[in-house]
Every structure is written in C-alpha cells, then in structure tokens.
C-alpha cells in the first residue's frame, strides 16, 4: 500500500495540536516553535500533494484512500482530492504558518494574570486543530465523514473566538469579554443550526440510497455513479429538500446574505490571526462544499435553485460592500468586505460556466491571501494602538511607511486591482456570470466601485492626513511582521501576473463538475475562427 | 372475606400516605408516609397475587421491600446529614437546588 499522503496531511497538524497542548506552562516559546514546525511540516505534505497530483489524470479523485468505518451505516473513511480541493488544501497549509507567526504574541499572558491555565499552548493547539479538521473536510469524499469534521471544527473555533481577543483598550475588560462571548456564542449557534439542518439532509440522503440501492451509502462517488447509470433516482421534491438542507449549512458558513451577521461579530472580536482563520480558511469549506456536494449530489435541484441563489449572492455583493462603507471599526469593515467577496464566489459557482466556477475557485485562493494580508496588517496596526476604531488613527503612513504601504497593497488586492491576484478571479467570475445572466453580471460589476470606495476611505482615514496624536511614535513593521506580510504580497503579485499554475490544476476539476451538472458554456454570437481566437 | 376489601384498605393507606407527603413538612414524617405508600402497594400486590392465583405479586412485594429497605438507609442518612448542618428537618428549608 502506498503512503497515505492525505491522511498524513491531516494527522500531522492534529498531532501537532496535541504536542503543543502538552508543552509545560513555563515553556511558552517552545510551544510556539513547535506549532510553527508542525504547520510547516503540513505545508511540506501539502506541497507533496501538489507534486503528486496530476491535473490530466482520468477519474474525479486522486490519491484516494478508502477504508470501511461504520459498516452498519455504510459510512466509509474515504479520502480523495480533485483539482479544487488540492488547491484549497494548499491554501490552508500555506496560511496557517502565517497565522501562527502573526499571532506569536496574541496569547501571551498579561503581566498581572495568573498562569494556572496554559492559554498560549491552547491558542496554538487550537489553530492546528482547526487546520487538521479543515484539511480532512477538504479531502473527505464520504458525505458523513465530511459532515463530522464540518461540524467538529466549530469547537476549536468557538474557543479561539471566545477565549482570545485584542487587548481591551478603552472599552474595559468586562465589556470586551461580554462582546467576545456574545460573538463566540453567535458563531456557534448559527453554524450549529445550519449543521443540524444539514444532518437531517445527510440522514435523508442515507434513507433514499438505502431504499433504492438496497444498502445505504454516503459515498460521493458511488452516489454520483448510481445517478449516472440510473439505478438511483431522486424524486424532484426529495432532491430539492435535500439540496436545501445541504445548501443552508454551507450558506451559513460561507456566509451568504441574510445569514451573514455572525461574521462581523466573530471577526471583529477575534484577534486578527483568528479572523483570518475564520474568513480565509474555515469559511472556504462552505463555498467548497457547494461546489463538491451541492452541485454534484443534486444537479437538478441546483439548477432549480440557481436564480434565487444568484440574487442572494448579488445582494451579498452589494449589501456587504455598502455596509463596509458604513463601518467605523477596521475589522468589521474587512468582515463586511469579505461578505461581499463571498457573494462573488457563490455567484461564480452558480453561474454554471467554466469561467464562473474556475474563477470562483481561484477567488477562494486569492481572497484567502488578500484578506490575510489586509487583516494581518490591520491586526499589527491595532495591536500598536489598542483600538479598532478608524477614527482613532490618521497619518500612519508618515510614521510607519512600510506598514502603510503593505496595508495599501492588501487594500488594492481587496478592491481587485489588475495586476494583483484577485482581479483575475473577480473578472473570471464576472465574465462567467455575464455570459449567462447579463443583468446580474452588470449589477455585480457595480460592486467594484463600492470596493474601491470602502478600501480607499479606510486607507484615507487611517493612513493619510495629519499625524494623529496617539499614532505619533508608532513603530514600523518589525522583522517578524514583515516575514508574515512580504510573502503574501509577493504571492498576490505572482498570482496576479501568472495564475496559470492554479488554473491549470483547477480547470479539469471544474470541467468535471460542469459535466456533472450537465452544463456547457454559452457559445459566442460571432464565430471567430480558432486560430485567431488562440492568438 | 372478599379480597376486594384488601384493595380498599390498600387504597386508603395509599391516600393517607400521599396526603402526608403533600401536607407535612418534617422530612421524617414524609419519609414514613412514603413507606406507608409503598406498603399500601405491597398489600395491593399480594392481594392481586391471591386473586389471580399466581406468585408474581408476592415476588414483586419482596422486591419492593428490598428497595424500600435500601431507600430507608440512604434517605435517613441524607436526612440526618441535613439535620446536622441546618438543625432542621423541614423539607421546605432545603430548597436551594434550583435554577
């Protein structure tokens, strides 16, 4: 048997979490380095996945592993990656070391606090735990296996949001703690409700397969195959109900309007690295699952629901952007911007074109990197001043030009400036949408003006103008912080100019998904011969 | 004698016991009333055993006695402990275990 690479990629961070948690209270620094080491080891394994992955290989999944797990219910431990998941695993593995580095001092005990508990070790252990669960959720090809980790990652996230936050600043310790626990509970409840509805749909799926195939199964490949050869047929209403059950959970996670209100709270109260973990890593599982499970398991229902979902994502795009303009809190602004971006991702997925879905996948990667860059720099800024309010800053670029410069690049990536990575994906999504739904495509394009508005207003109010009194003497980025931000910015530039390595991996998987949904791209009106088109 | 009369007696005893549990405050008295209710049940079981002509009822009566004995041991121990700490055996005083 070959080396179980997929299992290893998930097990390494899990082991890392346990090892980090077991470090004695006094050896705080050792725990940090240990966590970083395990995060880097995961990155290496993920790189190995990319190397061994062959974009042109036949069959939907590669590097598969398959073991029986709960025989009585047909639950299997099935792992496998396609082009979409292998890229998203790489994104996760790439971001976690930066999250760890950026959060290096976020969980240090306060000088006066007693250290009976080991918060530092806990912080890094929880981050690695989330990574392990996200990775396995990306790899699972068994619906039940996916569901377990989709839900289980809520637990470490809950503790990360509720247990660690920015320094209290002027709001006071009690008020901050109350806000934080509100945010954490809201996050948990929202996602639990979504998850429970999905559980009902998962059980429903089992009941249908058990009824029609004789033995119930949760295996994605088996179900898709059975549907293809006609041995499994969903009644229209059943399929729609099951689709809605799955979609609801993913729409909460994504988050899609109007299920979004947990995100600004969670991202606002959590420390910046945890906010990155939420929006750049955990939320991606939601949009990814739409592509993998909603579309592939329920193609007919997906087509049925498309108009409503497109309108909802359009609302997300415009609504998120408008609310971002109206925010007074830096982190909440970025959270609303993310809602707008998730609108683009869902729009691309349900536009049902190669450009739309390929763009959406690329968007997940690019949004992960760009939000990480912007949010982490914002976190560095906030940690210097101890306030999240935009009004408390001004003229930062005069005292800390490198910080301001990296913040600007992150912001420009967020507004999808051509030349930076998000532009490519956003444009693909827009083109993909436009070629099938011109009106929605045009309206979504308006989102790019609003994006420019909230980014530039944020930059202007915090970074330009006369130097605000509390900002005076603020130190510029330190070496550790630069190590976090610089690679992200380089990646944004590289993927903006040369996204081909990613699109090359993603494209066959997207085409496979499209064929599952029985969709093909609309043809242009004027036939331009291929030689010219290729030129 | 008509065995149904035993059932009337059992019902009467049960009612007395139930009324005692509801009305009295002293834990010991409540306890005794519970015993009374248990024994009323025992009487009913034995009567049914006789009526139906099998031994099921009598066997259950034995079980009840065993359970009642165990209950007495634990219950009295609790009552004594409460009395020691609170100097009272009133059940209304022990009302802290609530939300």
């Amino acid at each position: 048997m070959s080396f179980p690479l997929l299992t290893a990629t998930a097990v390494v961070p899990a082991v890392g979490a346990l090892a980090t948690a077991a470090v004695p209270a006094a050896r705080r620094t050792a725990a940090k380095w240990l966590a970083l080491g395990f995060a880097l080891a995961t990155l290496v394994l993920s790189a190995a996945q990319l190397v061994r992955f062959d974009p042109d290989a036949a069959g939907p999944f590669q590097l598969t592993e398959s073991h029986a797990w709960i025989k009585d219910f047909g639950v299997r431990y099935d792992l496998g990656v396609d082009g979409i998941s292998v890229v998203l695993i790489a994104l996760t593995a790439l971001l976690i070391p930066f999250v760890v580095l950026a959060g290096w001092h976020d969980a240090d005990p306060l000088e006066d606090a007693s250290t009976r508990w080991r918060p530092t070790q806990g912080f890094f252990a929880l981050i690695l735990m989330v990574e392990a669960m996200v990775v396995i959720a990306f790899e699972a090809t068994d619906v039940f296996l996916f569901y377990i980790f989709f839900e289980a990652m809520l637990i470490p996230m809950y503790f990360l949001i509720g247990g660690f936050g920015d320094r209290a600043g002027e709001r006071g310790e009690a008020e901050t703690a109350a806000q934080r626990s509100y945010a954490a509970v809201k996050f948990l409840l929202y996602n639990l409700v979504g998850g429970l509805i999905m559980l009902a749909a998962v059980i429903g799926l089992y009941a249908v397969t058990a009824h029609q195939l004789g033995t119930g199964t949760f295996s994605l490949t088996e179900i898709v195959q059975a549907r293809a050869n006609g041995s499994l047929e969903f009644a229209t209403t059943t399929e729609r109900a099951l689709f809605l059950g799955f979609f609801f959970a993913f729409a909460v996670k994504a988050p899609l309007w109007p299920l979004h209100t947990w995100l600004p709270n969670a991202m606002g109260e959590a420390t910046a690295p945890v906010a990155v973990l939420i929006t750049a890593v955990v939320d991606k599982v939601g949009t990814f699952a739409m592509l993998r499970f909603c579309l592939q398991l329920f193609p007919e229902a997906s087509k049925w629901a498309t108009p409503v979902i497109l309108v909802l994502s359009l609302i997300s795009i415009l609504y998120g952007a408008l609310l971002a303009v109206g925010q007074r809190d830096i982190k909440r602004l970025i959270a609303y911007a993310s809602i707008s971006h998730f609108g683009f991702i869902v729009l691309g997925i349900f536009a049902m074109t190669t450009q739309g879905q390929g763009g959406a996948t690329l968007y997940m990667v690019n949004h992960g990197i760009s939000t990480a860059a912007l949010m982490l720099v914002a976190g560095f800024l906030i940690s210097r001043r101890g306030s999240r309010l935009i009004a408390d800053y001004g003229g930062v670029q005069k005292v800390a030009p490198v910080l301001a410069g990296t913040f600007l690049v992150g912001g420009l990536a967020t507004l999808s400036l051509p030349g930076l990575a998000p532009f490519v994906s956003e444009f693909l999504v827009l083109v993909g949408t436009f070629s099938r739904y011109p009106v929605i495509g045009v309206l979504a394009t308006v989102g790019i003006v609003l994006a420019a508005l909230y980014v530039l207003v944020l930059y202007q109010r915090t970074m330009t103008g006369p130097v605000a009194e509390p900002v005076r003497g603020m130190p510029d980025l330190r070496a550790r912080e630069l190590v976090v931000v610089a690679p992200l910015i380089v990646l944004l530039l590289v993927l903006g100019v040369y996204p081909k390595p990613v699109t090359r991996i993603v494209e066959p998987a997207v085409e496979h998904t499209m064929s599952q949904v029985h969709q093909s791209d609309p043809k242009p009106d004027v036939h331009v011969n291929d030689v010219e088109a290729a030129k | 004698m008509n065995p149904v009369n035993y059932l009337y007696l059992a019902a009467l005893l049960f009612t007395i016991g139930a009324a005692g549990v509801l009305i009295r405050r002293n834990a010991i008295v409540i306890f005794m009333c519970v015993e009374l209710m248990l024994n009323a049940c025992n009487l009913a079981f034995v009567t049914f055993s006789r009526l139906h002509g099998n031994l099921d009822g009598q066997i259950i009566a034995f079980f009840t006695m065993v359970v009642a004995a165990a209950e007495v041991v634990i219950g009295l121990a609790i009552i004594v402990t409460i009395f020691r700490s609170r100097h009272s055996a009133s059940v209304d005083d022990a009302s802290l275990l609530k939300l």
Partner: protein
Amino acid sequence: MENLIGLLVLAPLLGAGVLLCGGRRLDRTGHWIGTLLAAASFVIGVVLFADLLGRPADDRELGATVFSWVPVGGFRADVGFQLDQLSMTFVLLITGVGSLIHLYSVGYMEHDERRRRFFGYLNLFLAAMLLLVLADNYLLLYVGWEGVGLASYLLIGFWQHKPSAATAAKKAFLVNRVGDVGLSIAVMLMFTTFGTFAFGPVLEHAEEAGEGKLTAIGLMLLLAACGKSAQVPLQSWLGDAMEGPTPVSALIHAATMVTAGVYLIVRSGAVFDGAPDAQTAVVTVGAVTLLFGAIVGCAKDDIKKALAGSTMSQIGYMILAAGLGPIGYVFAIMHLVTHGFFKAGLFLGAGSVMHGMNDEVDMRRYGGLRTYMPVTFVTFGLGYLAIIGFPGLSGFFSKDKIIEAAFAKGGTEGWILGGAALLGAAITAYYMTRVMLMTFFGEKRWQPDERGELPHPHESPRTMTIPMIVLAFGSVFAGGLFSINDAFLKWLEPVTGHAEGHSPVTATQVTAATMVVLVVGFALAWAQYGRRPVPVTAPPGGLLVRAARRDLLQDDFNHVVLVRGGEHLTRSLVYVDHTLVDGVVNGTAASVGGLSGRMRRLQNGFARSYAVSMFGGAAVLIAATLLMRAV
C-alpha cells in the same frame, strides 16, 4: 525587434520596483535611476520607431505574445504586445515627454524628502501607460488602464499629509472606477459576442456582431473613456487632481493618461464605425466637454485649475474628432500629440512659476513676472500661442483640422458641432490670454505667504528649464512638421483609416473663422485683464462666473445626490443590518431565552410542590387510561 517591446515596459517597471522596495539607501541616487530608466525606454522607443519606418507602410506592425495569462475554458487572455503606428505614436509621446518630466522633477522635487518614492511612482506610471498602449487585447489594456489609475492615485495624493490631497486622490480613483465598470462590461460583451477580446479578431469581425451589440460595446467604451479622460459627466476629478505635484499634472493629467480615452476610442474605431448611435454619443460628449472645460477654465484663479479646465476642453476636441469616425481619427491623435507638447510645457511653466513664488497658485497674486523669469515666460508664451491656435504653431494645424472635420460631418449635426468647436476656440483664446496676462503682465500683486515672507521670484534651475525649452520647441514645430506632405496622416492611415468628408465650408473659410474668433477672444481678455488692473481678491461676479468657479455645480450635484444619498443609504443599511437582519436572529434567541425563563419558575426547589406535580401527573395519566378504556 519584438523582444524590445517587452523591454519598453519592463525598464520603467524595474525602476518602480527598485525605487519602491530599495529603501533609504537609494535616497541619494534614486531620482537619477528613475530618469535613466525612463530615458532608456525612450531610446528603445526610438530604435523601434526607426525599425518601423524602415518597413513598407502596410507592414508596420510588430507583435509579441509573451505568455498565456488567464486560460480558463474558452476564455483566453494573453500577455501580448502589439506595436503599430498608433501605439508607436503614443510610445514616443509617453517616453519622450515622460523623460523630460522626470528630468524636470529632479529639480522640482529637490527639497522633498520622499523624492525617491515620487520617482518610483512616476516610473510605475510610465510602465502602466506603456502597457496600456502596447497591449494586444482589451483585458491587458484594462490592466494598464487601472495601473495608470493607481499611479495617478498615488501621485495626486503624494503629499498625503494634506487632507485635500488625500481626498482628491480618492475622488480621482473612484470616478475612474465608474469608468472602469464601463470597460469591464465592454470586455465582457466582447467575450460573449466574439468569444475573444483580442484587438485583431474583435475589430476584424466587428460588423458581424450587429448594430445593437456594437452600440452597447461602444457606449461602455465611451463610459470608460469619460472616466479616464475627464469628460462630462465624469470630469469632476480632474480639477481636484491638481493637488498633486505639478510634474504629475503635466505628465499624467495633461499629456498622457487623460488622453487614454481618446486612444481607446480610436483603437476601437471598427466598433464605433458600426454603431452610429454610439458615435453620436461620443461627439455629444466631446462637444459638451470642450465647452464645459473652457467655461470652467475662464473662471478659475488657481493657475493649475485653469489649465486643468483647458485640458478637459482640449480633450473634448479630441473626443469630438474621434467620434466623427474615419474623417476625424487621425486629427484626434494629431491634436493629442501636439497638445501633449504644449500642455505639458504650460504645466511645467506653471510649476516653474509656483517654484519661484513660494508655491502660490492664485494668479491674482502673480503679475509682472516676465522680467523675473524670462525663460519660463518665453516657453510658456510659446505654449500659449500654440494652444490658442496662432497661425504656424502646433495648435493651429491640429485644432483647425478638427474644426474642419466637425463641419464635414454634414447636416445640422455638422453645423452644431462645428459651431461648438469654433466657440470653444474663442473661449480658449480668452481664458489662455487671461492666464498669460494675470501671470506675466500687469502690476506685481505678490502677497506674503503664511510665514509672512514676500516671494522672491527667480528663474528655475537648469534641470527644470531644459525640459521646458524642449517642449516649447515641440509646441512650435510639431504641428508644422506633421503637416508637411500630410506626413502624420500617411503614417497613421494604415491603422485608423481615413476618409475625406464633404464639408459645407472650405478649409480657408474655417481658418478665417478661427482667426476671427481668436482675435475676439483675445480682445475680450485684453479688455478685462490687460487694460485694467486685476483685483487681488476675486470680485463676486455674476451667476455664471460663480457657477463656473464651482465647476458648474457638478461637485455640488455629486455631493447632494451621490455623497449624501450614499451616506444615507449606507447608514440606513447599517441600521437595517443591525436591527432587522440581526434583529430577527437576536429576537429568536431572546424569545427562546424568555420562554425558558418562564419555564424556570416551575422549578421552585420545594420538594412538596414537585410531589404535587408528580401526583397530579399520575392522576392525569390514570384518568386518561381509564377514559381510553371507557371509550
């Protein structure tokens, strides 16, 4: 040769990278690195130009596909360059004027501690602008398009510590973004219509798409052009953009970037030729803007803002010409080039004046500067003569051709457009004479600055005057050179095509009319500002003057409708999000909480009340059982 095209873009890009990431080490040499790389780009441009000239007229096109950029499904975007006569013209203008302005900035920005960064941004601009004109497809053009927007943003807001500069920069970017929406949609329309957005196939097959599609594409391209070229209704940012350092105004907001809209329309000529309605929209925008800008230019006391109004107006001429179709394309570009020379020269002159006058921009506080700054006076004066269309100078040749072409449009439309263009020429003569008189003639009206020092005007250093002299040469001779044997027309014709219109008026009549309006405009200005002393504080003025000072109330309109409206919208949405969307969630949580609070009261801790409920429950159960039996 093909490889050189990439190098053309790469040289300034390299400069931007080195200067922006280089850190303080490069503070002392950075400006020369930047200037050198700009000049290198110019040299490469000249080499390529020589190569093109050496080829036959119908084979002057070089292409190079560097790599495949975004291949997803049928969507293929390449990073590919295309160098033909049109691009070449722009390359020479951009790198030539760009290099001169780099040189000028060495002197102009000498005392700025962030000079290195300034040159980094300038190089970034050159790279993006070159990419814009060299791209062989619309998506890559879009990259350059936004790239110049970014550079413009960074440079307008270069003095970020001034809130007005930061606001102006943001405004410029935002208004441009509105235009970018147009370009985005145009590219998408091209993709759905043709399956590609490379220049070659799209323009070749344009007429097969049908008029409706072409009109839509054309209007979207026009929207894009309006944003970038500051045309009505997206012109409001250009005046504020003067917050940037003057070399920036000269290079970006006069000579090159703002003309990108003209490039876009001329480049997409085939699309517009198939969409008469879109063309009508283009000429309307051009005609309205040329008058709008001219009127605004008349009322401004800030020398740079007056010149900005003039830029708007002159680009209006170009857009007008571009909208006329094949009869105008060549002249649009020709005016663009000559305008590049004289307007850059005028701005550099204005910068030189400000340099000598402690950064004072109010022309009412100038006066009598001709003796103190002779070089500036002469170069500025030549630029002035060129822009008003003095016979023999550059503007005369290019502007007259446009006015002629406007008449040649034919019919009522031709008369209206020609009339507007003539009227514009008169106003141009008026406001430029006004600028000239207020700055260099008349009494000294110098005022002490904030520190209480009176300015000591002096001639600027050599690095600043040399570019001004070179540009003045261009202003004087470019138009004449281009017109010898119709050289410019023959050079561009293979790309843009050319058609002679049937003008109801002869060329001589047009020239005569232009001369008349020129004299009228000059005389009016002389009467107002030459014969009488200029008051230091502006007189209140009539309704039109006051409106013109406020950019014809465009900003007020934007403020009331867009800014206020937007603020109300976002504020109400924040409220809705908090109370309604979140309220439903929190309300559910609260009602569950309230219900459980009420249920909790049942748990009162009294053992006997629990016993009651137990007995009660048992009684109910027994009763129910009995009842069921009975039924």
